[in-house]
């Protein structure tokens, strides 16, 4: 009991008052359990729904990677427990090849779309856009709710595909036809693939509903004084993310629709000259398998920026607040976000240098791809300058923001290898690319997400996460991520192909047995550490230390002017007016000057 008292202090009653205050605001309306927690139209609740669903998927997807890493690390060892869990997919306690490929495919799909797209931008776009621009909710709360439920439905369909008899789709997350189009070529391309496409189609609908809403809200619902150049960088990043999604997801859907036709209605968009063992020659002629790759990567490449832009925005915001210093080069940050958004539509074919694409066409994509390194470099140097001569507080969010920059540098630099087609010809589809995108997109994206969760958790739940657990979580994850992915570059330099179930029969690649075992071990430790985070998250919702100050981080942005536990509608009374940009930290001797403070007469200009 005394412990509880220490934890929550004497102001518990005060925080409670704030609770009531929010509910007593003019937006007060009675909500049932269903309208408050399930079919909620409050953007904050929808954000939490996205977050928690994303976390469930992250655990599932992470667990899948642990399972297939087990196969890579211990290819000859039998784990009887796997057979009792997975049945025929792990006959004799050894994960079978078809199960391995299903796990790899599902891990990729789930992490890229459900966790790093929906979980990251779904959560923070929903949570931050109205709060940081000064709006009571999204432009269309109903569409917002639909967006979540389409995502939820997509998840259910994907989950159900794990339980069909022929297994889930197993042709890699990119789902290249003809493999994905022909059930006779791979058992995973039967019912599992139908469910995969349906799930992805639902997901596209979800992200379009969400994206249009984000754009409409940011453009139309900013509070008085909140001009576009006074928006926090998180909002700019989420804005560009939404634009990318709205422009590229429909192209993916069109690609999928053609795939559905090829699979079910006998068309030949992607199929030509195919003879399948045991089936014979197929009737299809005149299609192009490369067409699908164009359609897929026209989304696929913007997709990696859909993942990384929100993380960049969050890192910028968190870094500025905790360095107690303005973000360096706000306009340059904005310009580089814009440049990345534009260029991301012009580089898709760098995934296809060795696909049979015309090499002359490929050369333009080399140029444009390496061009994208310039705005990325600008961002990195701006982050570094933001830290320079700051007064840095290592909150867990700040640690993750710094970790994000480190990962973004490491993974971004290897992009220069892969974007250069003459080097890609050696490194393509090896472990080098696995290392590259896991560091720059997977880990960096996750780090951005963790930074966001640690930073805005007090706003979401009115309580703090446990700091010690957070620090342990950060340092193990940071060290572990490098230990897992750094050595993979060497495997890639050796030409070791990705997506191999077993390397023991390969004279050229079997020298990495010990390394594979090491990576698997670290992966398991890192995965266990994520469970620690998960525990911290759910435990702190109910038992965490209560937030007592309205603005615990000393931040300038509008979300910290709302009550500690804001109700639906966010502000009691009037929405505050904005008078300045959000990065006046350490100006004229003030620690911070909130956006709502009018510009004083004697204030220095910048």
């Amino acid at each position, binding site marked *: 009991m005394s412990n509880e008292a220490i934890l929550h202090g004497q102001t518990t009653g005060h925080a409670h008052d704030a609770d009531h205050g929010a509910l007593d605001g003019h937006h007060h309306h009675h909500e049932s359990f269903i309208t408050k927690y399930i079919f909620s139209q409050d953007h904050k609740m929808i954000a939490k729904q996205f977050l928690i669903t994303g976390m469930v998927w992250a655990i599932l997807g992470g667990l899948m990677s642990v399972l297939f890493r087990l196969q890579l690390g211990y290819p000859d060892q039998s784990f009887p427990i796997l057979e009792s869990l997975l049945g025929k997919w792990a006959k004799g306690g050894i994960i079978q090849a078809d199960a391995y490929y299903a796990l790899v495919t599902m891990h990729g799909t789930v992490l890229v779309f459900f966790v790093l797209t929906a979980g990251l931008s779904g959560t923070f776009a929903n949570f931050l856009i109205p709060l940081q621009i000064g709006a009571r909710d999204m432009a269309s709360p109903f569409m917002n709710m639909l967006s979540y439920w389409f995502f939820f439905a997509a998840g259910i369909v994907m989950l159900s595909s794990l339980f069909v008899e022929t297994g889930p789709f197993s042709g890699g997350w990119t789902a290249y036809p003809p493999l994905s189009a022909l059930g006779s070529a791979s058992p995973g391309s039967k019912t599992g693939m139908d469910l995969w496409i349906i799930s992805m189609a639902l997901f596209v609908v979800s992200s379009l509903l969400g994206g249009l809403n984000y754009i409409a809200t940011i453009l139309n619902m900013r509070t008085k004084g909140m001009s576009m150049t006074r928006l926090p960088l998180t909002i700019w990043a989420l804005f560009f993310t939404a634009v990318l999604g709205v422009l590229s997801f429909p192209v993916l859907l069109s690609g999928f629709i053609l795939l559905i036709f090829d699979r079910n209605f006998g068309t030949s968009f992607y199929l030509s000259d195919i003879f399948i063992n045991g089936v014979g*020659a197929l009737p299809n002629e005149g299609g192009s*398998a490369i067409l699908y790759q164009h359609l897929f990567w026209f989304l696929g490449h913007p997709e990696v920026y859909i993942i990384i832009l929100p993380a960049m925005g969050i890192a910028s915001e968190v870094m500025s607040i905790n360095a107690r210093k303005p*973000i360096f080069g706000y306009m340059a940050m904005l310009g580089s976000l814009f440049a990345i958004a534009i260029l991301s539509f012009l580089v898709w074919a760098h995934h296809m240098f060795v696909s049979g694409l015309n*090499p002359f066409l490929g050369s333009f994509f080399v140029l444009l791809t390496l061009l994208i390194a310039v705005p990325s470099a600008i961002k990195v140097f701006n982050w570094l300058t933001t830290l320079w001569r700051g007064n840095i507080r290592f909150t867990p969010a700040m640690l993750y923001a710094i970790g994000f920059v480190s990962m973004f540098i490491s993974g971004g630099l290897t992009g220069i290898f892969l974007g250069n087609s*003459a080097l890609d010809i050696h490194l393509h589809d090896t472990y080098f690319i696995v290392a590259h995108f896991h560091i720059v997109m997977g880990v960096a994206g996750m780090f951005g997400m963790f930074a966001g969760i640690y930073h805005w958790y007090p706003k979401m739940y009115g309580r703090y996460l446990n700091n*010690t657990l957070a620090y342990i979580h950060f340092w193990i994850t940071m*060290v572990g991520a490098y230990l897992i992915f750094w050595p993979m570059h060497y495997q890639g330099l050796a030409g070791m192909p990705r997506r191999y179930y077993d390397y023991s029969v390969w004279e050229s690649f079997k020298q990495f047995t010990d390394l594979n075992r090491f990576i698997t071990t670290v992966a398991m430790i890192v995965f266990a550490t994520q469970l620690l985070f998960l525990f911290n998250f759910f435990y702190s919702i109910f038992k965490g*230390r209560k937030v007592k100050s309205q603005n615990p981080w000393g931040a300038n942005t509008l979300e910290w002017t709302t009550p500690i536990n804001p109700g639906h509608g966010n502000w009691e009374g009037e929405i505050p007016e904005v008078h300045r940009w959000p990065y006046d930290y350490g100006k004229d001797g003030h620690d911070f000057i909130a956006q709502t403070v009018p510009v004083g007469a004697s204030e220095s200009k910048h």
Partner: protein
Amino acid sequence: MSTFLTIAVIVLVFLVIFQIAKASEYVAILKGEEKSRMQSNKINGFLMIAFLVLGLIGVYYCNELLEPKILGESASIEGEKVDEMLYLTIAVTGVVFLITQILLFWFAYKYQEKEDRKPFFFPHNNRLEVLWTVIPAIVLSILVVIGLRNWFIFTGEAPKEALVVEVTGHQFGWIFRYPGKDNTFGKKYFRNIDPANNSLGLIWTDNPGANQKADPATHDDIVIPQNVYIIKGRPVKFIINSRDVIHDVGVAHFRMKMDAVPGIPTTMWFTPKFTTNEMKEKTGNSNFVYEISCDQMCGNGHYSMKGIIEVVTQEEYDAWMAKQKPYYFAAFPEKDTSIPPSAPATVPLDTANTSSTVSAGTATNQNKLK
């Protein structure tokens, strides 16, 4: 039993960590927020610089450990250019990596919160922005120029004297075809494929029903599964096809790679520098072989889709080639004038009749033609 023990240990570790975390939170509150923040700030600041130092040592150690395990010298002349580019890119990005990572963690350590420190209000500086826009742009342009020059060599026309071999991928293996004495690949059509005796669907005979005329150029084509022979010092050009899904001809030792796409032929060429035997000596591995790995996900047997490239001298190649029979004779042994008709060469056809269910039509056609 051991599983449960492991789980029990993990749970116990979790509990201990949780208790420590809980206790330290109480202590922090008792000490006061400000003071405990300063304390954890110091620890994390130290960890930042420790991570940097240990990380850099780790990078060095990892290189010492793994560098000998990568492939070594390129086995093709063109691959040398890939390696040159690789080392140049490693040098350039390595410098940037060191500078930025050191600055990142050093700044984090150096500028950690101190009570008497006033953060420097420094919102922008156009000169700096221009500096780090222009320098990366210049460096990248250099890399692009070198890269594209090599790219056009790799993807350009193969030299005239190149040995031409057709490579066809299928689930899960490779089939190679040499044009034979006439130096021309005969026509093929995928509907003629019969895995038993016409694995590529060569157009051997007239088939008026399908509007096909026999292509005599097919009659001397040599078809071999799995192992391909090429000549040291002579450029080789692969014409790459796929019979079913997308595959990829990955030849890591030669630093080349190209997809095999059904319906869309692709090409790749390179000049091997060492024979397989020379590589056995060079690597000290008596089992050394040049392997073709499929590098594009192609189904559940993807990981086992191996081909072997035998690089031999011209003499060895000639001797080997002299022993090869055109594929046509395997299917139509009676056309082979070099062996007496009584020889037991009819075996392939027999197996064809029993094993091929799908292409029964083709098989009966051929029986009729006999």
